[in-house]
């Protein structure tokens, strides 16, 4: 009998698991269950949809024909319950789906702001397509918006609303943007970009409560008792893994659903992948969370391979990488680059990795070239992390050097020297290293 796979979720982890299962087992039954009426689309791409760079339909990488070709049956329903002992998934409409292998890939969800007034009409977030459409609809009538939070999503919303003609107030609790990952100079570049795009930044400003009239948002009152008029209040203070289904099914959970190196949860034949999966740390302690597209794809693929046959493929956490655009600047973040706490975020944000903030003793080299700004965190014999802003040419060799934990030897010393030609040194080292491997 064909093995029955049920995948809960329709994001990159679920899709990549479906592809992996099919690559191993042509006869398998694959059912994807999702509560998202828009199915599979690029969640990070919502930023470009908001900014009018791509239409809604352009965000869907797969057509229904692609799913049919992959042999995936779509069920558009919310999952009410998982019964691991009976190997059953119960849907909100009461139907039962039996499974031989189950994948939970439910993603993550925005943390609500803990102040009075969050229930008012006009308090918005950006978790999914529905939220993006809501923001776009509301931007047609809104004149002013307040954006609260940090990381990438807060800026996606701020820039998207600006592109739609809304005046944006961006509130920061401290003196600079994303201080746990970016250096002060990098924060200033982003803030300057925001200002030149018309975003009004309020430093050292915290929301005390959201004010409203007739159930609708009218203003934000700050801790400094200032009232900022707003038709919309967008909240992006971080996300949490959506682990509720796993918890109620009795699966062991930490911050997410806990999984072993084969991405198996604590009940037989149940796997988790993507943002919701928290891989157990080998020597106890917390393992870093990542809310990254490429991590979700990698975890989904490994879970799928293990579900299709006997679990033989361990998930190996790679050096976290994200390339994004902040206030018009392309920026690649890889390895460990910062530390400390970001007061604008609670926990982790979308497009974020906790590893980025685990920088220990490292020498920092900053270099500003004509087209790019580069910051390197140098460990004793390796490059622990890097940020490249602007032209991304140098970020490709750095990605490989950091991901492969290459012993850079004497290069570290040369990079530390005053006025070192950083770009040339890295490129020539990388070429020699590649040639040596060939």
């Amino acid at each position, binding site marked *: 009998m064909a093995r029955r796979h049920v995948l809960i979720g329709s994001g990159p982890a679920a899709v990549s698991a479906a592809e992996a299962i099919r690559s191993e087992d042509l006869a398998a039954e694959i059912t994807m269950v999702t509560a998202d009426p828009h199915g599979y689309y690029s969640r990070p791409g919502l930023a470009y949809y908001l900014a009018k760079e791509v239409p809604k339909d352009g965000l869907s*990488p797969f057509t229904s024909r692609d799913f049919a070709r992959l042999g995936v049956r779509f069920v558009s329903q919310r999952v009410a319950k998982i019964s691991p002992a009976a190997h059953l998934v119960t849907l909100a409409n009461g139907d039962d789906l039996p499974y031989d292998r189950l994948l939970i890939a439910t993603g993550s969800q925005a943390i609500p702001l803990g102040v009075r007034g969050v229930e008012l009409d006009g308090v918005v977030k950006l978790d999914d397509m529905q939220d993006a459409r809501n923001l776009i609809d509301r931007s047609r009538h809104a004149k002013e918006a307040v954006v609260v939070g940090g990381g990438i999503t807060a800026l996606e919303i701020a820039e998207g609303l600006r592109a739609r003609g809304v005046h944006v107030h961006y509130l920061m609790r401290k003196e600079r943007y994303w201080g746990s990952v970016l250096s002060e100079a990098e924060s200033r570049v982003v803030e300057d970009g925001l200002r030149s795009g018309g975003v009004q930044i309020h430093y050292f400003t915290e929301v005390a409560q959201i004010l409203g009239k007739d159930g609708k948002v009218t203003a934000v009152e700050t801790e400094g008792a200032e009232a900022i008029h707003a038709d919309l209040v967008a909240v992006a203070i971080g996300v949490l893994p959506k682990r509720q289904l796993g918890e109620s099914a009795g699966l062991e959970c930490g911050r997410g659903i806990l999984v072993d190196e084969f991405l198996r949860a604590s009940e037989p034949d149940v796997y988790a992948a993507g943002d919701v999966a928290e891989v157990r740390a080998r020597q106890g302690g917390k393992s870093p969370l990542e809310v990254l*597209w490429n991590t979700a794809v990698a975890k989904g693929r490994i879970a799928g391979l293990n579900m299709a046959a006997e679990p033989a493929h361990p998930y190996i956490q790679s050096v976290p990488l994200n390339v994004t*655009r902040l206030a018009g600047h*392309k920026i690649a973040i890889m390895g460990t680059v910062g530390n400390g706490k970001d007061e604008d975020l609670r926990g982790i944000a979308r497009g974020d990795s906790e590893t980025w903030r685990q920088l220990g003793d490292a020498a920092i080299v900053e270099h500003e070239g004509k087209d790019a700004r580069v910051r390197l965190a140098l460990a004793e014999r390796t490059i622990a992390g890097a940020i490249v802003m602007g032209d991304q040419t140098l970020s490709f060799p750095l990605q*490989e050097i950091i991901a492969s934990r290459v012993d850079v030897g004497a290069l570290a010393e040369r990079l530390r020297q005053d006025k070192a030609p950083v770009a040339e040194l890295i490129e020539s080292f990388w070429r020699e290293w590649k040639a040596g491997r060939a």
Partner: protein
Amino acid sequence: MDPFKADRDRHTILATAWVLPEPSRCVQCGVCSFHCPMAIDVRRHVWRNEPVKDSYCLTCGECVKRCPRGLLRFDVIPPLGIDEHTWGSH
């Protein structure tokens, strides 16, 4: 000083190179495919880690320029295929 060097380099790239992706940076947003004047699904090539070796590709550079994450570039594909030449790890 050769005033025609830039034009010649550009022509060489257009005539001999392909658009190559770096899939580990792609979030499948579709900006590349949406802006392709020849309606090539560039995004799909990236998902499969394939160069945009489509006979309709004009190597116009629209996708390279528009990609918000800078993961597309022009380069010459070596005889042994893309894996020999791509940056990054897959």
